[in-house]
C-alpha cells in the first residue's frame, strides 16, 4: 500500500497548501475555498492513514 498511501498524502498536501493560500490571503475574499480545500486535505489524510494501517496477507 506504500504507493497508494504516498499518493493520497501528496493529494492532501496540495489541498492543504491551497487552503492555506485562501486562508492567509484575505484579499482573495473567498474563505469558503479555505474551508472546503482544508476539509478535503483532512479527508485525504484520513484515507491515507487508513491505508497505512492495513496489513496485507503474506
Amino acid at each position: 500500500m506504500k504507493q497508494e498511501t504516498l499518493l493520497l498524502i501528496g493529494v492532501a498536501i496540495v489541498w492543504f497548501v491551497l487552503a492555506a493560500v485562501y486562508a492567509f490571503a484575505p484579499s482573495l475574499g473567498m474563505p469558503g475555498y479555505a474551508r472546503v480545500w482544508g476539509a478535503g486535505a483532512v479527508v485525504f489524510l484520513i484515507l491515507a492513514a487508513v491505508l497505512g494501517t492495513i496489513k496485507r496477507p503474506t
Partner: protein
Amino acid sequence: MSDSQHVTTRRAFIGTLGFGGVALYGAWAAYGAAPLPFFHSRAFEKDNGITPHQPQAGEGPGGGHGAAGSMTPDDFLRRHEEFMARFRQPDGSVAVGSAEAPPAHATQLPVAGHDMHAMPPPHVDQGGHGTAQRDAGGTAPMHTPSHGSAPAHSQEAQPTDLYLLAYRFGFAPDDIRINSGQPYRFRMMASDITHGASLQLGRGSRIIRLRPNVVVEQTIVFHRPGPVLVYCTTYCGPAHDAMKARILVA
C-alpha cells in the same frame, strides 16, 4: 512495462501527451491574452481595447481604486438620480451626447430609431460625430458636478459618465441616446438581486453580470450607429424575459 514496448505505448510518451491541452497557451500568447507577463503583447490591447483594468497591488474585492472603487451603493444611487434628472429628455429618453448636441436633435432621433430591427438609422451625419470625437475634451463638463475626486483613467478622450441601474424587472434609464466613436464610462449596478446588463452589438454580445450593490464600471466606445439591445442574462424572476433597454447610437 517491458523495454521492448513501442514508444507510443510508453508511460513517458502517454504522460506527456496528456498535457496536450496546455499547448493552447500558444494561441493565448499570440493574442496577448497569455496570463504571464513575458508573453504579454501590447498590440492586442491597443487593437481592440479588451484590456482589463490593471488592479493596484494588494487590492481586493471592495478595495478601492479610483472613483468607482470608493463608490458605495448609496453614492451610485444618488449620482444615478442626478444623472437621470440632468439628461432626461421630454420624450422620456436619456440623451448623453456630446456637449454641443442640442436637445432638439436628440428628440428627432426616436423617429429613426423606432423601427429597431437591428438596422442602423437611415441617415447619420458622419461629420457630426467626427466633430464630437475631436471635441471630446468638451465632454468634460458633462460629468456630474459631484464627480470630484480621482480623474478617470484617461484614454485619448475623457469618457462621459453614464449610469445604468438594473432592477426587477427593468433598467433605468431604458432608452438611451449616445454618440458613436465617443467613450462612455458605464457605471452599472443591480439594486435588488443579481441581473445581467449585456449588450447585443449586432453579431455578438458583450455579456455583463451585475451583482446586487456592486458597482461595475466599463468604458465603452461604440463604433457603429444603430440600436443596441441591453438585456438581462442572469435569471431574475417572472418577468426576466421582458427585461430590456435600448441604447441608440447616433
